[in-house]
Structure formats: C-alpha cells, structure tokens
C-alpha cells in the first residue's frame, strides 16, 4: 500500500477509537485494570519511541548527535521548560554537535 493509504487508514483508526468512547457501553471500558493498562502502554510506547528516535539508524544502534539533543532536552524538562523550548534546544544541540564535526 502507498504511504497515502496508510496515512488515511491510520487516521481513520484513531478517529474510530475516539468515537468508540461515545458508542461502547460504559462498563466495557470502565474496568480500572483496563484504564491502568492503557495509561502504562502510553508510557511504554513513548519511552520506546525515545529510544528508537535516539539510537536507531535503520536496524543499527548508533550513538550520534541525537544523544546530545536528548540530554539537553532532559535538562530543559527538568527545569520545566515549555514544549517548544525543549524541541528547539534539542535541534540546536544536535545541529551544534554536528557543526563541531561529531556525530
């Protein structure tokens, strides 16, 4: 399938999940164990995405300028910087490290 098809299909699946919350009888999803698992899966997915975005290059593990970006982002988040500042500092750190000839 083309990238266009996946874009539209993924969007429809996510929209369907939202609608499901309004159509499915409450008791099906009200189970606290389901809510807990859903919250933890969100955390797990994001943590795994941080790792792949930082260290994966195709199917190789590499250490490059992206690690500097994540380190700077972590410090910025620790200091309660807003989202856009964190992202911009990440870009600056990666671009800066590359400009110096590393990674």
């Amino acid at each position, binding site marked *: 399938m083309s*990238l266009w*098809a996946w874009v539209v299909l993924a969007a429809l699946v996510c929209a369907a999940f939202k609608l499901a919350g*309004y159509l499915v009888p409450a008791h099906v999803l009200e189970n606290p164990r389901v809510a807990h698992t859903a919250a933890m899966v969100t955390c*797990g997915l994001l*943590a795994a995405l941080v790792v792949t975005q930082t260290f994966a290059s195709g199917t190789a593990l590499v250490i490059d300028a992206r690690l500097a970006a994540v380190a700077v982002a972590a410090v910025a988040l620790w200091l309660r910087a807003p989202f856009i500042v964190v*992202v911009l*500092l990440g*870009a600056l750190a990666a671009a800066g490290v*590359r400009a110096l000839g590393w990674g």
Partner: protein
Amino acid sequence: MGLATGAYGISFGALSVAAGLDIWQTCVLSLLMFTGGSQFAFIGVIGGGGAGAAALATAALLGVRNALYGLQMAPLLRPRGWRKPAAAHLTIDESTAVALAQPEPAARRAGFWAAGLGVFVFWNLATLGGALLGDLLGDPARWGLDGAAAAAFLALLWPRLKVRQAQAIGVLAAVVAAVLIPVTPAGIPVLAAAAVTAAVAWWQYRPPPHVREATS
C-alpha cells in the same frame, strides 16, 4: 493554550516533512487523526524506515487512551446527532483536561468545546506552517531535526513519569526497544515494547484499597 498548541503543531509539521511525508499528508494527519501523540508516533516510525502497518499500529495503540477519555466525557456532554462525531473528534488530552479541571457541569461542557475547537484550529494552522517551514529547510540532519524529534518524544513522555510505576514501565519499554533494534525490522521494537508493557501492566495491576473494598 493556543500558543502552546501552535508551537507543538509547528514542531509536528516540520518533523513530519523531515520524516518523508509531503505537506498534504502531514495536513491530513492533523485534520483527520487529530491526536498529537499518535501523529508523532506515526511519522516517527515512517521516518525511522518502518513499514506503514507498523506506523499504523503504533499510532492506534497511542490512540486507545482517547476512547477512555470519550467514556468520561460521554455522560457529561451527552452529545446527540451530529454533535456526537464532533465531540468524539475533539476528544483529546487537552479538551479532556480542561473539562475535568472545571468545578460545574456547565463549565465543564463549555471548557471541553472551547478547548477542543481552539486546539483544532491552532493545531491545523500550525501544522501547515510547520510543514511549509520543514519543506524550506531541506536536509533535516543539518538543522538537527532528528534531534528535535527525539527531544519531542521525551517531552511527551516526561509529564507521564510522575508515578513510580510509570518510571519502571518506561525503563522496561526502553530496554526492550533497545535490545530489539538490531534484530528486528524498523517499527517492530516499539510495538514489541508496547506488548510487553501491556502484559506487565495487566498482571501487575493491584486495585487501590477503596476499590478493593467496593468490589469484594
């Protein structure tokens, strides 16, 4: 909130183009998918060389929480007719959080619609702006956009790590993903980490004391 959403949307638009989507595909994601975490996940998997199916599955898993938000919002909003799909489409982190922060039911309803519509407008305008900007920038690595993507995921994860159990789950998922990167196709490590996370969270779940009393 409009300003924060705008900044977030510009990041998404620029990173989506850097990941290899075109401007229109990027805008369709913001219009139709309209849930930031899933959108970032989708472009993250595609940008990392993952298959379309893996990108869809990752985005869908991150979208499950919106169904739980809808469940909380349905009895409050009681939408009928065309308002039901409209309310569903606007059910995201921000609108749910604003609604739940209000003391009165009427204020909760107003907060939901105002936040949902406001974020929708700003998010889509910012996405278009970010996509045009990303298109102008050209080579993503030179501008550090790959570093920005990693930083963005860390920023999405950070506020969810307040609970100790979430920190443990985050470490577990990170290790699973790192171990699998060299031995599986791109996109699979993230899905495998989600599967392990779901299994551990399901079996480790212990209801808080007041719930246990009520159900026993």
